[in-house]
Each structure stands twice: as C-alpha cells, then as structure tokens.
C-alpha cells in the first residue's frame, strides 16, 4: 500500500512536470511561430465574416432608394469591410508576409463585394442577363445558332458553353445560377492576376496590395453572366502566359531621336524609346522547346475561344500582343500573325451575315467627338442621384489613374522600368477613337487596364523591398484602401435600384409568355425590362423608347394604335401585348429627364382609349392586351 502511494505520488509529480514542460514547449513554439498581430489578423477576418453574414437576412431590397445598395446595407456589414481592410493593411506591413492569411483576406473581400447581390436578390440582376438566358434557351431548344437573328449568335462560344452546362445540370434556364457569375468570374481572375503581378516585381507586398486594389476598383460590372466576363479571364490568362514564358530581356541602345516637330515624329520617338529602353520584368521562366510549342498551342486555343465568344476582347488581346512584339518585349513575332489570321478567318467565315447589314453602323460609331459624347457626356443625365453616381465613377477612375501615374513615376525614379506594363496600358487606347461601342468603350478600357493600374497604384506604397514599413505608409495605405472600398459601394452598386430585378416582375413576364401565342407582338414600355428569355425568335419584340419615343414622351396612344395595326397586318401578328415593369419606371427616372409617373399616365391613357384591356397586374408588372381589332 505504502509502495502504491509512493508510486502514485511519483507518477503524479512526473505527469505534472511533463505536462508543464509540454505546455511550456507548446506555448514557446506557438509564440515563436505566431505573434500577437498574426493572431489578431486571423481573428479580425473571422469577425468580419461573421459581421457580414449575420445581418444579411435583414436586408430588404424593396426599401432601396436611388443611392443603390448602400441605402439598405446594415452598418454592421460596412463595419465588416472596415475591419477586414484594417486587418489586411496590418498584415501587409508585417516584416514576414503570411500568404495564407493574405489569401484568406482576399477571398473574403471577393465574397463580400461580389457575392452580396446573389445572396440578397431573388433573381439575377441586369436586364441583359435575361436576353443572354434567351440565347442560351434557343441553343438548348433548337441545337443550332442563327447568325441572322442576333449579333450575339455570330460570336456564340459563351452561349454554347452555357447551354451545355445548363442542359447537363438539368436546369430549365440559366436564371437559377446566373446570379453567381460575378463571384465565379472574379475568383477566376485571381490566379492570372497574381501571375501577371509576379512577373513585374519580387516584392510580394506590391503583388497582394495590387490584387486588393484591383478588387476594390472593379466596379464596371462587366463580370455578370456575359461573354465579356469569361473573355476577360481568358485575356488575363493569355497575358499571364506571355509575360511568364515569352518575354525577352530588352537590350539598351542609344536612341536616335527624330528632331523634326510634329505628332508623327513624337510618336516615332515614343515607339523607338519603348523599343530600346531597358525593362525590369522578372527573368522569364526558362522552358524547353517542346514546352514552348505546347504553350503556343494553348495560347492559340485560348485566343480562338475568345474570338468566337466576344469580338471586342479579341481586339484587346491583339493590341496587347502586337505592342509587346513590336516593342521587342515578346520574341514570338508569328504569334500576332497567327492571331490576326484566326480573327480574320472567323470574321470572314462566320460573321458575314451580321456585318453585311451592320457595317455602316459599325464604322459610323467612331471619332473623337463620338468617343467623348457616347462614353462620357451621354451618361451624365437623369436624376440627381444617378448623376452623382456617374460623377463618382468618373472621380474614382481619375483617382485610380492618378495614383497609378504617381506610382509609375515613383518606381521609375527608383530605377524600375515597367515598360511592358506601360505598353499593355497604352496598346488598347486607340480603340477608344475607333469605336465607342455603344458608349461602353471607356468602361471596357478601364477594366482591361485595371490590373496594371492597380499594380502601379500599389507600387506607390512599397517602392523598395524593405522589412519595415513606416507608420505613415500604413496610415496612407489604410486611408486609400478605405477610400477605394467606400467608392466601390457607390460606383458598383449605385444604380442597383435600376439594375436589380424583382421576382414579381419576372413572374409577370413569365405570365406574358404563357398567354401570348407565338407570332404575337410584344411591346415593352421602356428599356431595362427582364424579358426575351423564352422562345424569343417566335415573337416580334419592340421597345417604345427605341421604336416610338413620342408615345411615352407625349402620351400619344393614337400613334401606338396605328403602329400596332399597321405592323399586325404586314407581319400577320396573332396578338399585341404591352408590358410595363418596375425596372422600366426606375430606368426612366434614373437615365432621362422625363417627368415622374409618365408610364402610369400612359397606362391610364391606354385604358381610356378603349382599345386596350388590363390582362395582368402585380405590384411590379402590368400587362395590357390590344383589343382594337376585335
């Protein structure tokens, strides 16, 4: 017994000593591995995620005002963005960078900024998504494309892919998953952006901050369920592969400047300078001959997919590749030649039907005046809130570009010659004069140049790779990051009242398709309608502001009746329906100077004429049927 007691005491002592020793070792190891800041930077994003998720269910999109999504966002969600930014900036200024932590922060930011609408809105945003649903539905139903039906069918790659995925998944249409496209595409952009940035610097802080700036400023909204959303990812992939494997070290040579005055001489001097100035891209990753051939084939496959998915992105790729080859940043001179051939063959063989009827229209939309009018002036109209959002977008664009300019100059003064990135920024700029692209060219240019701009913006804070960061830099970094995020909430989601669709109006449009027989005439009161997503080719669709603007502006019902009767006779229509939705009313209020309630006035006039009958009514949609010929 005595022996047992003694033994048990010894065991207890041993256990105690071992336990204490074990705990001490563990604690010491933990302290060595993780500082207080590390733990804080893990705790803060977890809190941010919780603060962002908890009030999500309380958001009521119906209460949104003309300022957009920010008007219904609970303060706790904005606080979540704030603490995530603080945590990221804190992490970035640490002597040792924790890549997994930075990635966690970035993934959370992408989720918070680009996944929010899919969670709070019941149906996909943007009326154009419903047209894309219509193209996909056509392919699913007929197993063909009709280039004469719509321009999109001349570049159908994306829609064929979406038809394949939708049909294999067993969905009826894309509307069940299209709302998640922005989140998916932005996650796709992450890896190629990382590769692009690492080709220009070894300083990983610039790389991660550049990524953060990219996502805080990607407000243009081209990442919805669209061909350009996917094509942007492929564009980034092509650039990433080119910069990683195909760049060549430039050799400095004394430049012979053209002394004669004039723009041509200045341009020639600029190109000569770009050709011979020494670049500071990271050494290109060496690859074998077979790898090189394989990567070239991959580049051409990706480019081919871009060409038959989206016409504009292929031009951006070509501009970038030609600039790199001309200015001796890429040795593969045959690459742009093959790319031009692919593009030319596609345009000649597959898009003739469309271009034959629209060539004059395509060429008409060019010139300096047209570029300024379509891209800037035409957008600054509408009510005060809409104008404020447009001005904010212009302001944020100027801010990003200015910061990028200063960042570039600062790097230049420190001996970094980022000519490759500069070429990628400048190469697509002439396209602005060549085509206004329906007033969207500036937006597309902004998106295409944003990676390089974000990189230069990030370079402003970390010029030289040093272990310690001054407090002023940290404060400046935090200030700019918060400014970008604040701007983002307004610039991206400022028009959300117009961009968001409600399930009530989509149900109304579905009802219209259920009652309207094929061959009917469908007329929308204004643009911005979530329609044309079902058997679109079987109906004659019109929009009053495009075909008959006077009908809305002057409440001219007689003109409408005349139009319906004459068109119905010539096209043998089986019925005529008028559709009015909430999104149309918001679009009129936001983008025109027409008086409020003008559509309601037209609806009353339609009923008063005795030639229209109210067929369907809900809070967000009204359908009238034409009874005049009965």
């Amino acid at each position, binding site marked *: 017994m005595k022996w047992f007691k003694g033994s048990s005491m010894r065991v207890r002592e041993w256990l105690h000593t071992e336990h204490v020793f074990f705990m001490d070792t563990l604690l010491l190891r933990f302290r060595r591995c993780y500082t207080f800041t590390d733990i804080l930077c893990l705790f803060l994003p977890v809190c941010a995620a919780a603060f962002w998720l908890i009030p999500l269910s309380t958001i009521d999109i119906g209460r949104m005002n003309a300022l957009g999504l920010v008007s219904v966002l609970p303060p706790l969600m904005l606080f979540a963005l704030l603490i995530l930014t603080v945590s990221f900036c804190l992490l970035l200024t640490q002597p040792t960078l924790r890549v997994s932590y930075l990635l966690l922060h970035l993934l959370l930011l992408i989720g918070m900024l680009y996944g929010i609408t899919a969670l709070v809105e019941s149906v996909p945003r943007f009326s154009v998504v419903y047209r894309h649903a219509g193209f996909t539905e056509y392919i699913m139903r007929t197993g*063909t494309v009709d280039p004469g039906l719509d321009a999109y069918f001349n570049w*159908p790659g994306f829609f064929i892919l979406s038809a394949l995925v939708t049909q*294999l998944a067993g969905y009826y249409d894309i509307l069940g998953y299209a709302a998640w496209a922005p989140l998916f595409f932005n996650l796709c952009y992450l*890896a190629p952006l990382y*590769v692009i940035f690492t080709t220009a610097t070894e300083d990983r802080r610039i790389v991660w901050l550049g990524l953060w700036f990219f996502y805080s400023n990607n407000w243009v909204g081209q990442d919805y369920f669209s061909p350009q959303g996917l094509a942007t990812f492929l564009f980034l992939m092509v650039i990433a592969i080119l910069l990683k494997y195909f760049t060549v070290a430039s050799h400095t040579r004394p430049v012979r400047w053209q002394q004669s005055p004039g723009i041509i001489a200045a341009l020639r001097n600029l190109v000569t300078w770009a050709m011979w100035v020494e670049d500071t891209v990271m050494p290109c990753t060496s690859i074998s001959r077979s790898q090189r051939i394989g990567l070239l084939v991959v580049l051409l496959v990706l480019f081919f997919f871009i060409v038959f*998915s989206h016409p504009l992105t292929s031009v951006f790729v070509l501009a970038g590749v030609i600039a790199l080859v001309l200015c001796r940043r890429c040795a593969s001179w045959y690459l742009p030649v093959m790319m031009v051939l692919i593009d030319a063959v596609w345009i000649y063989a597959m898009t003739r039907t469309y271009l034959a009827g629209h060539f004059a229209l395509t060429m008409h939309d060019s010139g300096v005046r047209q570029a300024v009018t379509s891209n800037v002036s035409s957008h600054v109209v509408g009510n005060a809130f809409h104008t404020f959002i447009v001005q904010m977008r212009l302001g944020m664009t100027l801010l990003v570009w200015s910061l990028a300019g200063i960042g570039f100059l600062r790097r230049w003064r420190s001996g970094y010659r980022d000519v490759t990135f500069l070429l990628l920024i400048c190469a697509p700029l002439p396209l602005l004069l060549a085509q206004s692209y329906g007033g969207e060219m500036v937006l597309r240019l902004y998106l295409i140049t944003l990676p390089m701009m974000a990189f230069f913006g990030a370079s402003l804070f970390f010029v030289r790779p040093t272990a310690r960061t001054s407090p002023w830099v940290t404060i400046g970094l935090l200030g700019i990051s918060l400014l970008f995020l604040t701007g983002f909430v307004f610039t991206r989601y400022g028009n959300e009242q117009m961009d968001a669709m409600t399930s009530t109006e989509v149900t109304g449009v579905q009802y219209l398709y259920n009652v309207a027989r094929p061959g009917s005439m469908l007329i929308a009161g204004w643009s911005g309608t979530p329609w044309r997503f079902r058997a679109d080719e079987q109906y004659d669709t019109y929009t009053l502001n495009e075909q008959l603007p006077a009908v809305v502006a002057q409440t001219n019902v007689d003109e409408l009746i005349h139009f319906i009767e004459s068109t119905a006779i010539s096209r043998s229509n089986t019925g005529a329906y008028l559709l009015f939705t909430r999104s149309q009313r918001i679009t009129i209020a936001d983008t025109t100077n027409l008086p409020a309630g003008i559509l309601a006035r037209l609806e009353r006039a339609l009923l008063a004429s005795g030639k229209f009958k109210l067929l369907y009514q809900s809070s967000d949609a009204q359908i009238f049927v034409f009874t005049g010929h009965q």
Partner: protein
Amino acid sequence: MRCWWFCPLLILLSVGAVDIVMLVSPHSVVYHTVLFWFLCVCPGLVLVRFLHIQDMALLWSLALALSLSLDSIIASIQLYVHLWSPVMTLTVLIYFCCVGSLFQLLFSTRLWMIGIATHK
C-alpha cells in the same frame, strides 16, 4: 506537381464520380457540384500536365481556362455539324480525360520504374 500520380488519379476519380452520381441522383446538389468540378477542371488538367508547369497558380488557372475552352469547342463542333447533344459532349470529354490520365499514369509509372532500376 510533386506527386506524378496525383493529377491523373484525381481526374480518374472525378470521371468515376460523375458517372456514379449521374446514375444515382442526377438532380442532386452533389451531382451539380461534381459536374461543375469536372467540366471546369478535368479536361484542361489532362493537357496542362503535359506542359510541366511548376507555378501552381498558373497550372490551376490554365486548367480552368483550357477546360472551359475545350468544353465549348467540342460542343460547338457538335452544334455546327447538327449533332447537338450535351450528353454526347460529356461522353467525349470523359473519354478524353480517361485516355489522357491513363496515358499519363502509364508513362509516369514507366519513368518511375526506370528511375528505380537505374538507382539499383
């Protein structure tokens, strides 16, 4: 990728998973997830492995980009020759992945055996 067998095995497992889930519960969330994974990653991963890319970020993003391109190109060929059939496209992609992965496995195993023999 350090483990030469990892990617081919992953692709073969994904192919098996698509087949099984398609038979067992074709309208479940699991089926959608597995199908999405297969279409987005596997066909491209088969090709990317032959390029011996060391950069993980580039490898996986290229696998994604190539997968989407291949899916679309194969489906487009079928569409333009008036043989539109998503199930047939999936079958072609499954065969493509199986052949590519088996080739990689056999080729890598042979290299591995040669390596062991040389070492001995």
